[in-house]
């Protein structure tokens, strides 16, 4: 081995440093493997997040971006909490353009830590019901694992991450390892009483989130300031930057290389394994190869799949492991932006100070137990309640002193239920690589062609109507529904484009997330999911990653 090659050789390579990649790096490093973590985005070191502590008067244009600045972010600006304060944590779409065959919002982080600095931190386990769903209703391939396979890894991950929230013993939502949540506000306490006394199959619980109400592993606790979208200097919520990456660095085994866009995996035909990856340095545009015995792809579902599709060789002319043509198919997302809202007039005399980052949650109850609907699977609600101050003035009539005075008073309690709906795996939904167009790094552009189906349409209508009914039963006034035209990608839970399965003819990965035909490569982000139950998925990515990496290491020791 030449010196240059040696310098570029590691025991393990991890591609992408977000929620799943952070875990891959931590597990490899803690097991003693010299690990290279390759990240397309910029360096970002905890706790130095830009604008994390900026005051409102320090953020120009009341935290908005100018028309000129927005030109670089035509897609990212549509993200739920995109603003001047955190826009640099999102990729510039102009730096990484893709082709939408149908509208698809692809949101991406732009730094070490990926979207773990942007997420809303909701963490729920999948249940047995979820792992059996594909087999039972025939949509998608059978999951190659069941709840018992992943349960120890959920436990393992939750112990490290630290979650707060409420358990509720439901078949559709296993209990988790939780620290006590923040106290409920008055509206939440009342709504809980009112809903749970009227509906035996519905629970209104305190959200389970990677938010620390107590100090944990040297992080936190949360300071109730509700600025999580900027990164948390207190480590009050879990991110790769505050959690997995420092743990990996502490072993002395981790090397992080930002500005490194992995273009493809290098396959060695003689050993039938991957021997490394090719990167393009995003600053110098130079191409370099890095070598490693074990490779974990964690670039997030779409980007990971693109790397595999671009890893062509005489053995795999259509992409690494893609002997069956399945790679890129079944890409999908949850749908959201359907639900209802109302006013809790009964709570006008109740106030709160500070803001807890995670509110309430109604776990899936549709098509569970006795409940049967004319659509398959189900949805969960994220449930919000807040009192606005000056922003209520946007819609309020009035000019002059009285109007001005009212702006510093609390508005009514606004209560909203926001559904997150499962969508069925569908082969017609797919991503491919353009044969003609390249991105600024010279890598083929990704083409995305995803549409929601009739099942989603029906589910969304039900989610809006049921939310209205629940809010009215809980005593809310002026209840209205909403059901926006859903755009895939918007929920940021994209999944399925390199799915796991027992049958190599219909899946890309085996039950240990290894590529069937190239077993030293694992993919453990959303790409691997055969279906995406309505729970927020990142906890499952973390658990699958820890499980897959540990198996890969064990297997490699056996030789």
């Amino acid at each position, binding site marked *: 081995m030449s010196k240059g090659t040696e310098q570029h050789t590691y025991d393990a390579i991890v591609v992408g440093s977000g929620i799943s990649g952070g875990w891959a790096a931590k597990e490899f490093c803690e097991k003693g493997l010299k690990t290279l973590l390759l990240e397309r985005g910029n360096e970002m070191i905890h706790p130095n997040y830009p604008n994390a502590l900026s005051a409102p008067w320090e953020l120009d244009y009341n935290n908005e971006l100018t028309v000129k600045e927005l030109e670089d972010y035509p897609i990212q600006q549509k993200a739920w909490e995109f603003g001047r304060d955190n826009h640099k944590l999102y990729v510039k779409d102009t730096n990484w353009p893709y082709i939408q065959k149908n509208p698809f919002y692809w949101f991406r982080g732009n730094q070490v830590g990926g979207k773990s600095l942007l997420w809303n931190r909701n963490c729920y386990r999948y249940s047995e019901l979820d792992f059996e769903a594909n087999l039972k209703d025939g949509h998608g391939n059978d999951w190659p694992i069941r709840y018992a396979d992943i349960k120890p890894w959920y436990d393992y991950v939750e112990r490290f991450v630290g979650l707060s929230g409420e358990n509720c013993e439901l078949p559709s939502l296993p209990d988790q390892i939780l620290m006590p949540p923040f106290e409920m506000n008055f509206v939440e306490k009342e709504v809980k009483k009112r809903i749970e006394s009227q509906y035996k199959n519905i629970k209104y619980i305190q959200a389970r989130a990677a938010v620390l109400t107590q100090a944990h592993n040297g992080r936190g606790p949360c300071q*109730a300031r509700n600025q999580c979208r900027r990164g948390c200097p207190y480590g009050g919520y879990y991110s790769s930057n505050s959690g997995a990456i420092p743990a990996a660095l502490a072993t002395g085994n981790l090397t992080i290389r930002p500005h490194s866009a992995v273009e493809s995996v290098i396959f060695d035909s003689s050993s039938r394994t991957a021997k490394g990856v090719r990167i393009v340095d995003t600053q110098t545009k130079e191409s370099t190869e890095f070598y490693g015995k074990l490779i974990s792809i964690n670039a997030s579902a779409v980007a990971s799949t693109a790397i595999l599709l671009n890893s062509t060789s005489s053995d795999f002319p259509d992409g690494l492991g893609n002997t069956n043509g399945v790679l890129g198919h079944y890409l999908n997302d949850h749908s959201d932006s359907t639900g209802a809202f109302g006013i809790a007039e009964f709570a006008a005399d109740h106030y709160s100070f500070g803001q807890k980052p995670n509110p309430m949650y109604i776990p899936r109850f549709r098509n569970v137990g006795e409940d049967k609907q004319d659509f398959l699977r189900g949805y969960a609600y994220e449930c919000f309640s807040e009192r606005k*101050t000056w922003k209520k003035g*946007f819609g309020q009539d009035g000019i*002059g002193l009285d*109007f001005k005075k009212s702006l510093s008073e609390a508005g009514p309690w606004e209560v909203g239920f926001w559904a997150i709906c499962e969508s069925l795996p569908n082969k017609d939904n797919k991503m491919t690589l353009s044969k003609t167009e390249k991105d600024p790094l010279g890598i083929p552009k990704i083409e995305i062609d995803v549409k929601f189906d009739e099942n989603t349409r029906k589910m969304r209508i039900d989610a809006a109507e049921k939310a209205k009914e629940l809010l009215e039963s809980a005593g809310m006034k002026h209840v209205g529904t909403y059901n926006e035209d859903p755009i895939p990608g918007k929920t940021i839970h994209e999944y399925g484009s390199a799915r796991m399965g027992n049958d190599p003819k219909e899946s890309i990965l085996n039950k240990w997330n290894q590529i069937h035909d190239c077993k030293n490569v694992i993919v453990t982000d959303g790409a691997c999911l055969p279906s995406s139950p309505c729970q927020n998925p990142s906890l499952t990515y973390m658990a699958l990653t820890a499980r897959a990496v540990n198996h890969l290491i064990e297997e490699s020791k056996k030789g």
Partner: protein
Amino acid sequence: MTRRKYIEILLQTGFVAALPGEGFSKVFLKGNSDYFFEKTQFKALEILCQTIIPKSETPGAIDAGVPHFVDMYLKNVVSPENQKLFEKMFAGYLTHLQNLKISFIKTSKVLTAQMEKDEKGEHRQFIKGLKVMVLKGYFMNEKAIRQSFQYVAVPGNYRADISKKELGKMWIN
């Protein structure tokens, strides 16, 4: 409507002479071409902003730099289509006030009453649009925020259910 025509209306309505000296933006007076409004338009804008958020024990819109904010916001944040729309509505509103022969020099009470009325009528879209910008500008002024609310950047703890008395001013960060 051309800009010139616009200014003519402003002159006729008396906007230009109103509120002498009160917080007129120094930066604006440099006559920088980067600004959205002409000087005279800006004066009219100042009066409208100050009418929406007058001075009380907390700063008024002019002291809080709101007209300047609105100018910069229109220039840089609002899309070219909406800029045109705003200009049209702004001019339309000034014409409307001119037709009513409201004198701005004497008192703002008349204007306040008129704007209240107009907000419910055909100039609703203009007044609502202006108000959104005025509020965004006002509530990014440190003094306005600190005096209107209990600004605590890092609460440290969440107090879930307290009375108005226990809370005092509303919390904001």
